[in-house]
């Protein structure tokens, strides 16, 4: 494996604001302004601030940006916990069907039966995959799904009269939880109690028993967990949580590891979210759009966001607004429908046997990788890995100052995206690797070769990497301390200096 076979384009490309040619010639976005709406003067603007750039230059600008970007269409993207599988192109034309694209969200139900049928089918499919019968497709992404679930739990306990400053006021999370879990619980009005994981990286059942009480509203868990290890005690965990009168929540982050093998309902979870953009391969990364449907038990169903699609009389699909127990709408209309359509297309294309093979291949790929690199990059615990695993670069770090960050940066020179680094924080110099099912044997071997050869390279070279990318080592400390996020901020910064 040779790092010199990969070269990213390197353009000294200005921003579109730098390319602005000033007021456009006459056209649909004529700059002449009128104030027909009688806006107050302080809100009326002369221009909308969008730069004028010739189409040819705009196309070149965007193409050059794309050439300087790394994506799953460019190379292997083993970013742990993100499930960066190759995005099937098959659902794209389906999602772009004019009959779907042009349906107005306020169209009468009888005029929108096609799209409602698709959404209904997706609700049914997710209920089967999750083992939980009731689904809302509305949440816009995983974190919003978590928030919705915690709000629903809160409303349920309020209706039961159990919410007070001393009771059902707390949500318990393991220390390996994704940061969004405690954030979602806090946003829903709960206090957060973190419990330490056992030495094997799994939930410490004793610590959980000690942590839950009538104060506990829910325990949030993903299974397999963040280390890619299946929580074998999950049934015992469900029993402990339910005996305390609390709810068990499943974070769908790692659903790619269990499709068709088990499901959250069977494991005893009461409520969950799906990251359909991850698990069912709709394009993601870089901020979305995603979709984070929530599935739950009969008991929690009245609290789901609305509207939901139901089958009415005469087999017609109708929108159901539920009753006053629903937490209401959390996103406009029916959620990110384009993403949802792609997810259904993917699910239908694979079928249940195909989805089971997705999981089997994802798990096999992860274990193949792990077995080949474990001598150089060991992992805590001996348990079989699922779809992802966490190894440590601590040995290299101690030996010559090549840690997780350095390995990740150097991998870019080999044309491979960095794994997740320094997460979870309960493993030192952690590299979290998730190859997904879509990488070929050749791609996996290339990743192994790259990881092993980085360990043998001159540490001085590795610490300066990357060299073959559009941008070299970026100063992330400076960027975090002095963020310039908008063009206005950049201009103010330049004027100031």
């Amino acid at each position, binding site marked *: 494996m040779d790092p010199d076979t990969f070269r990213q384009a390197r353009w000294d490309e200005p921003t579109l604001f730098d390319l602005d040619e000033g007021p456009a010639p006459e056209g649909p976005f004529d700059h002449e302004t009128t104030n027909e709406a009688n806006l107050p003067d302080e809100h009326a603007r002369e221009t909308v601030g969008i730069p004028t750039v010739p189409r040819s230059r705009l196309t070149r600008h965007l193409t050059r940006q794309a050439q300087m970007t790394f994506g799953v269409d460019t190379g292997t993207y083993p970013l742990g916990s993100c499930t960066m599988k190759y995005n099937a192109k098959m659902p794209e034309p389906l999602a772009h069907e004019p009959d779907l694209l042009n349906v107005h969200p306020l169209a009468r139900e009888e005029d929108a039966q096609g799209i409602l049928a698709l959404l209904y089918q997706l609700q049914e499919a997710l209920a089967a995959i999750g083992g939980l019968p009731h689904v809302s497709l509305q949440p816009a992404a995983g974190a919003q799904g978590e928030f919705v679930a915690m709000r629903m739990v809160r409303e349920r306990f309020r209706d039961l009269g159990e919410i007070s400053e001393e009771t059902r006021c707390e949500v318990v999370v393991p220390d390996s939880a994704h940061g969004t879990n405690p954030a979602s619980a806090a946003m829903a009005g709960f206090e957060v109690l973190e419990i330490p994981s056992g030495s094997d990286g799994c939930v410490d059942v004793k610590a959980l028993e000690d942590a839950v009480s009538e104060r506990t509203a829910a325990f949030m868990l993903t299974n397999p967990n963040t280390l890619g290890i299946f929580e074998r005690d999950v049934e015992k965990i469900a029993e402990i949580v339910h005996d305390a009168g609390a709810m068990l929540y499943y974070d769908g982050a790692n659903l790619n590891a269990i499709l068709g093998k088990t499901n959250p309902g069977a494991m005893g979870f009461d409520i969950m979210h799906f990251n359909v953009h991850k698990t069912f391969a709709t394009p993601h990364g870089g901020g979305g759009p995603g979709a984070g449907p929530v599935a739950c038990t009969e008991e929690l169903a009245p609290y789901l966001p609305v509207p939901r699609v139901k089958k009415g009389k005469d087999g017609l699909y109708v929108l159901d607004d539920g009753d006053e127990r629903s937490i209401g709408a959390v996103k406009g209309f029916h959620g990110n429908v384009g993403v949802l359509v792609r997810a259904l297309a993917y699910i239908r294309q694979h079928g249940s046997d195909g989805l089971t093979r997705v999981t089997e291949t994802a798990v096999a790929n992860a274990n193949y990788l792990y077995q080949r690199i474990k001598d150089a990059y060991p992992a805590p615990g001996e348990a079989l890995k699922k779809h992802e695993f966490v190894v440590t670069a601590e040995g290299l*770090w101690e030996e010559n*100052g090549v*840690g997780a960050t350095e390995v990740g940066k150097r991998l870019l020179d080999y044309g491979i995206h960095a794994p997740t680094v320094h997460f979870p*924080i309960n493993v030192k110099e952690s590299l979290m690797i998730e190859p997904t099912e879509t990488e070929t044997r050749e791609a996996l071997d290339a990743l192994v070769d790259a990881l092993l050869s980085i360990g043998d390279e001159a540490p001085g070279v590795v610490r300066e990497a990357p060299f073959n990318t559009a941008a070299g080592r970026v100063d*992330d*400390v400076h960027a*975090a*301390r002095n963020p310039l996020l908008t063009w206005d901020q950049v201009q103010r910064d330049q004027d100031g200096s």
Partner: protein
Amino acid sequence: MLGGFNVGHETPKKLAYTKEHEWVNVEDGKARIGITDFAQDQLTDVVYVELPTEDETLSQGDAFAVLESVKSVSDVYAPVDGTVVQVNHELEDSPELINDDPYGDGWIVVLDMHDASQAEDLLDHEEYVDHTEA
């Protein structure tokens, strides 16, 4: 640049410490608190600091500040009970002071201690060095 890589850490003898890597300097019932050289080195470059407000009352073990680095986010815990009487607001604009001068300009708060005897339970220099080497 190479935090954690064969770097010796400074641990002043006159200070008291906690297992959570805070240092405490007790004078006249007031406790000045920061994080240790070892801790700032483990955290790597601090990029954001969330501070408590003056007059806040803290119990031993309460998380009272948040330090964010490029790698991670960490809480800072109150080593003793006390009321916040001074906050180092310099850190808001210059979080790097925690890395550059952890025992000096990188101090975080001063607490008016509620129970001076709690200071006796803190680790001394030797115990803290043993703790970091364990």
